[in-house]
């Protein structure tokens, strides 16, 4: 069978109006259904004809999944809210600027206008072998082409590799983990709410998915609790190009300071591993320590313990060390 790319295959387009209807359609169609938010990830797969779903459930008409609402404890962001809207939202900028910063650095303005928060956290890996349609582990095969003696793995994982060495590409995910966000999922068994970090799955558990969504599941909203509102935030994304690029790595942290001392902190990095990494060891180590360069140095070293570089991605170790260091050092300016 000859291969051709760049022609979208035919599928049944289903455009529900409500979340309930969308979830029901997903459930009815099971493995045959493809759920599409902004389409920024979906269109790649579809146009390359690597994924050929029978039905496509387009969420763009589901109004209830859009928008940012204040709740008793923070805010709730509909999964279909565009990244641009989040970046420009006053309350987000005021209380959760970490997220605003993170989503503002996603891809390009055009992509942020179309891309959604739900899509950004649920997007698939960008390993070029996987995306090229190579039959790797993640695609259901039995090999990782990136981790071979000659594999091209500059953008791949230094942590958490289990057969697959792809990284999670989301910029918003580490910010949401740092903000202790909760992901609201509508499942065939009812609503399920999980911690941000538990939304993501590593290859050791499920090598073909990056998150816990099963056929029939629908991510409907992301709730950010007020607990970290207005904390000292730090976000940095390192990429090759200043626009339209996935992270080589990013870091997101929320820090509570009392005086110059870190009373509590949450920190996560992404593009270092197949799922966003919350750095609990770092959080524990810096609690009660002054937010300064010295603590940052120490934390940076802790962060990269156990990192395993591949042939072309050793730079990610000093990069991660320095990003963590900077995140903690940023507290010094605040103090």
């Amino acid at each position, binding site marked *: *069978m*000859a*291969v*051709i*790319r*760049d*022609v*979208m*295959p*035919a599928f049944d387009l289903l455009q529900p109006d409500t979340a309930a209807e969308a979830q029901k359609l997903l459930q009815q169609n099971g493995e045959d259904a493809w759920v599409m938010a902004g389409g920024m990830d979906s269109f790649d797969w579809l146009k390359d*004809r690597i994924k050929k779903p029978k039905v496509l459930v387009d969420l763009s008409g589901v109004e209830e999944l859009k928008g940012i609402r204040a709740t008793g404890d923070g805010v709730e962001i509909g999964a279909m809210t565009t990244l641009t809207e989040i970046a420009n939202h006053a309350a987000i900028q005021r209380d959760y600027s970490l997220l605003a910063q993170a989503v503002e650095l996603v891809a*390009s303005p055009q992509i942020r206008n179309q891309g959604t928060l739900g899509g950004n956290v649920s997007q698939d890996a*960008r390993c*070029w*072998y996987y*995306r*090229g349609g190579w039959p790797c582990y993640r695609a259901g095969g039995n090999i990782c*082409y990136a981790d*071979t003696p*000659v*594999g*091209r793995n*500059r953008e791949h994982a230094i942590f958490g590799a289990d057969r697959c060495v792809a990284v999670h590409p989301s910029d918003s995910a580490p910010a949401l983990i740092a903000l202790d966000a909760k992901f609201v999922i509508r499942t065939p068994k009812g609503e399920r709410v999980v911690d941000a970090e538990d939304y993501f799955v590593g290859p050791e558990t499920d090598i073909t998915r990056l998150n816990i969504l099963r056929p029939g599941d629908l991510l409907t909203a992301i709730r950010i609790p007020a607990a970290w509102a207005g904390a000292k935030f730090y976000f*940095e994304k*390192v*990429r*090759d*190009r*200043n*626009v*339209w*690029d*996935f992270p*080589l790595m990013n870091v997101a942290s929320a820090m509570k300071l009392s005086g110059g001392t870190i009373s509590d902190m949450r920190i996560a990095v992404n593009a270092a591993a197949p799922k966003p990494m919350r750095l609990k060891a770092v959080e524990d180590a810096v609690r009660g320590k002054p937010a300064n360069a010295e603590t940052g140095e120490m934390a940076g070293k802790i962060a990269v313990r156990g990192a395993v570089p591949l042939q*072309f*991605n*050793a*730079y990610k170790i*000093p*990069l991660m060390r*320095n*990003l963590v*260091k*900077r995140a903690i050092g940023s507290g010094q300016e605040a103090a």
Partner: protein
Amino acid sequence: MAETEPVDVLKAENEKPRQFGTGYKLIGKDYPTNDLVAKVTGRAKYAEDFRAEGMLFCRLVLSPMPHARVKSIRAEKALAMPGVKAILTPAEVPGHADYINDNGTRIKADKWSELALADEPMYQGEPILAVAAVDELTCAEAIEKIEIEMEPLPFATDPLESLRPGSSNAREEGNVWVRPDSSRGPEKLAVLKWTEEDFAAEKEGRMPMGHAPDEWSYGDVDGGFKNAALVLDETFLTPDVSHQCLEPRTTMAYWQNGKLFLYTGTQSTFQTVAAIARWMHMDEDKIVFISEYTGGGFGSKITGALTLVIPALLSKKLNAPVMMRVSREEEHFIGRARPGIRARTKIGFAKDGRITAVDMFLVSDAGSYGSGGDGGSCGSIASLLYQPPAMRWRNVTMATNTPPRSAQSAPGGMQAIAIMEPILAKAARQLGVDQVALRRANCPEGKAEYGPPNREGRRAYVTSCFLKQALDLGAEQFKWRERVAQQPKRVGSKVRGLGVALSCFHGGSTGFDGLIVITPQGRVQIQSGIGNLGTEALIDVHRAAAEVLDVPWDACDIVWGDTSKHFPYTCASGGSQTVHAMTRAAHAVGLECVQRLKEVAAKTLGGQPDGYEVANLRVFRKGGGPGLSFAEAARQAIKLGGIYDGHDVNPDVNKATKQSVAALAGQGLVASAKDKYPHDGDSYSYLACFAEVETDVETGVYRIVDYLGYADVGTVLHPAALGGQILGRSTLGIGHAIGQKWVIDPQYGVTVAERFYQNKPPTILDVPVNMKWNALNIPDPETPVGARGCGEPPVGGGCASILNALSDALGDNIFQRAPVNADTILTSLEAGRPMQDPLIAHI
């Protein structure tokens, strides 16, 4: 206007820059080009925008293997599908054809050259089959029903690896291109393997040097090194970079009354007809070629693209129009690329920074077709731009199973500058010489010589070079001294760095024709066979004709983009020759037109032609008196017939121009002329490029703070267009420094980075908001108007000024290859030495 006496060195220094447009009414002035509104409003029609009744679509099947033999194609199931019309196989494609290189020279086809569809694909992504159907979805579904049996053959994607003992070759016949001893005829493939001893240098991170089939030298190279105060021996790898034209090679074709009507993007409208004829094995007069707008070429569409024959052949087969839209992925494979060159370069320097000798050893990757590895040009540009008194050049041009290369803006020049400049920067630091001063000490000037002596023992030389002035004025405008003095260089984790680089490339050719019709409505209709490739040369060059005719620009109509509208013999737009070549032709036809107008007036109103002058759309007696408007003159010309209305033709012009004149005969005053102006030397254009970067040593990320390209391109024809060229092509070069690349998995020989987000061409946010340019505006003495091309010359300087700024910020132990990214910088800073392997290809 034109000075013809040679410019000696002293005089070159005496030439002073002047304001743009000095002495002209049109030349050197900004104006809205005739195609501007269509471009910015979206009205411009590119090949993909055309439609024809009953139009079918075709799509390509690409080879999944880097080298293979197609054993069988089973398409019965596909052809049985509703809506599927036909397939086109390699057997149906006409055989090998000649091609035109970047300089417009015709190269005879050889048995190793490329065809539109291959039965022995030489690279992954090479088209092997096409399918036509009522729409693209049907094409795709049909293609997925086709079974193609392929036999994988040995392949090589890394040129250096293919020189290793026992390694595989790109083709059965060999891995390296060699020139027959007897002549400068077509090159042949041979097998070349170096020894394990040759490869010993690899362990020290240096490029190994074994036997090189190509070599030249001049001067006392050994003596130069012996007398040097400093000798540097550096290894450097320049990236393979795709052209990535925003408009892919999309083509639409149909046949009417035995004529082929073909729509596609090209750099050279007129010259593409000959290419289509060669590729299709048909006569040029049976071809109507339409190319109104082209979304970029950069050397990859000098005469369109070979794949254009696919819809043409399918259209003939099906007797229906066929549109072949080329996707971004397909464009990555068939869209051409710059050859990466790995170089080992030894340069000797005197204490003052003057180069004493250069020994350059290159291994270039010519890809899957053709021997164009850019190595030759790389050597000659190095010898011109840095004027070494002694130089040896050795070159190995490798064939690999990677996508085909072609000229890309400053082919070889870009690589030469990227290879040489970082060594100059390192030398300046080690010698304690200012970077600008070191370049000034080695800068070409006047009728600078370059390259090896020819058989008569003479070296080639250029028409003129005022680069020193550009360097001095550029340094002044960039505030080089002030920036160098600015302290501290490091604030927190941010370190600033400054870079300067010289740059040059070809800037012109000669001998083409111009063609003007003055219509009975009094319009000056200028026939332009130039491609609309985005440089505006298509229109700008004709300002020279209007200037000579002394007519207001709004009285001029430019006819372009459709060969049924009859064009003069026009240069191919490659090698940045158009502005130079076609201002000459425009100037010539302007003068011819003036002369014919005077003759028509004399014949109509009496007196001698010399007693008349032309201005303000009139021809009239000198000192006042009766005259004719252009409209009247045109009507008179038609009455007079013969040479005046095109029934006779200027005998000097090319055959093609004669045919066009004949076709336009009777439509007004028809004037044609050939550029016969003298021209002593080779035309090159030059730039001094300056950059400042700010690097973050904790993340490896850097930002280009400022950039200036200061040009010596002769007379500035159209400032806005020139600025676009200098900054646009600088950005193309900057892309090589900051991230654009190829990534190929060597196990399968398959590209893994074929999308923009993977191979990372630069974005507008990667260059400074206020990039600056300037130009000397000193006319080239060897051409009327004095203008030379500037498409390609900035590229090398764009790349190298960034590389030099990086090494200024971070030291000499960071990179041995481009592009330089966070990975390069961070790992090297950690280790204190360059950590990114300088020799592995396509990482």
